[in-house]
């Protein structure tokens, strides 16, 4: 397993964010996580009242809903949408890290993110290892959905050219 400070295998935005976390003290890391929880974008209107069409992330202590879209462009750009209540700032913060790190990347880049990436932010000590499971669960589900949607896109493209 790579060192916690190993960042060469992370996408650029994620590596930069991990570096920001490591540059500050433990209490400041919590503040940074709080900022990310506040910056988590609200759901676009088309998801209003349709939480049932989103995937529920059970690994989070508080309810979090996730939607993944893969665009029809050559890169198969990934778009991520999250919904979690304001009373769950840690869950929102984890979602914020993943949004900032992964939204707008290509499907291939998202699929190449290592599964232990959530542990590269130096947060396990600040929030306790038990709570880190939430972010691991989110990343796992994002990758699974990207894989599904990306396969579907590739199949469509194959049919069109046939």
């Amino acid at each position, binding site marked *: 397993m790579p060192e916690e400070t190993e960042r060469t295998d992370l996408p650029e935005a994620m590596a930069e964010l991990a570096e920001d976390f490591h540059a500050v003290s433990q209490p400041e890391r*919590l*503040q940074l*996580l*709080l900022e990310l*929880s506040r910056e988590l974008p609200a759901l676009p209107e088309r998801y209003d009242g349709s939480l049932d069409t989103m995937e529920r992330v*059970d*690994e*989070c*202590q*508080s*309810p979090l809903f996730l939607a993944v879209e893969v665009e029809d462009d050559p890169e198969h750009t990934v778009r991520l949408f999250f919904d979690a209540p*304001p*009373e*769950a*700032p*840690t*869950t929102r*913060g984890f979602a914020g890290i993943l949004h900032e790190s992964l939204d707008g990347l290509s499907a291939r880049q998202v699929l190449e993110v290592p599964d232990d990436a959530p542990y590269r932010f130096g947060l396990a000590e*600040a*929030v*306790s290892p*038990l*709570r880190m*499971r*939430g972010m691991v*669960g989110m990343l796992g589900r994002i990758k699974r959905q990207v894989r599904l949607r990306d396969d579907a896109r590739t199949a469509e493209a194959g049919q069109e050219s046939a």
Partner: protein
Amino acid sequence: MSTSTSDKIEAYAHPERLVTTAWLAEHLDDEDVVVLESDEDVLLYDTGHVPGARKLDWHTDLNDPLTRDYVDGERFAQVMSERGIARDTTVVIYGDKSNWWAAYALWVMTLFGHEDVRLLDGGRAKWVEEGRELTTDVPEVTPADYPVVDRDDSAVRAFKADVLDHLGSPLVDVRSPGEYSGELLHMPDYPQEGAMRGGHIPGAASVPWARAANEDGTFRSREELEALYLEEQGLSASDDVVAYCRIGERSSHTWFVLTHLLGFEKVRNYDGSWTEWGNSVGVPVER
């Protein structure tokens, strides 16, 4: 200090253990009172808290980082001191999730024999719902002298061996019905926490913790609690009772109800709970 807060609270066996939001609002500047927020979510305090309240995290402050156990007397004294708490300070604890983690913190403080520790009835949600003041200002705390006291696990804590000896005596399983029956290996809406077996400890009665709480998170009246635990469940205040859940937080809530609201003399919280029992080799399980 006056503990009279409401007729509802006065009716409990130990009314000095519970305060109303109105009482707390009046005592925020009281030098003998320290307010602690203890939440499941480690960042919730930082989004805004009761003015002057200090943060106490169940995981990073009260649990030993290596052994699955609580901190020792030395570390506990440090945690208290850093929050300006002396041995004779009145401590009022509130938190999210119907006070689960507040009750858990109160129970841990009881292991160290801190005398005057109380819960805020209704917890964080009630304070917020009433539109009372919240601040993100973290108070500047002058550390207090807190003595190093040995933790005493004998009175209110049960270990697995104690529970094995206790089989046949009153056991209260406070988890959800699905966890009790063994259909679920974890709380509904919560992560799978890896129990190898589902079910309950033989002889345990299923009394989900939430039955002791109103919709707004406040405790039910003494009359309602007696109807539940004494009449329906047939328990009596002189019974030797062990309560458990998944990791000991929801059962702290029930421990508080039986001990302080109904005046039971001997209630122990089995904090190993299902994450220990459901993974232990050779212990009996009932479905």
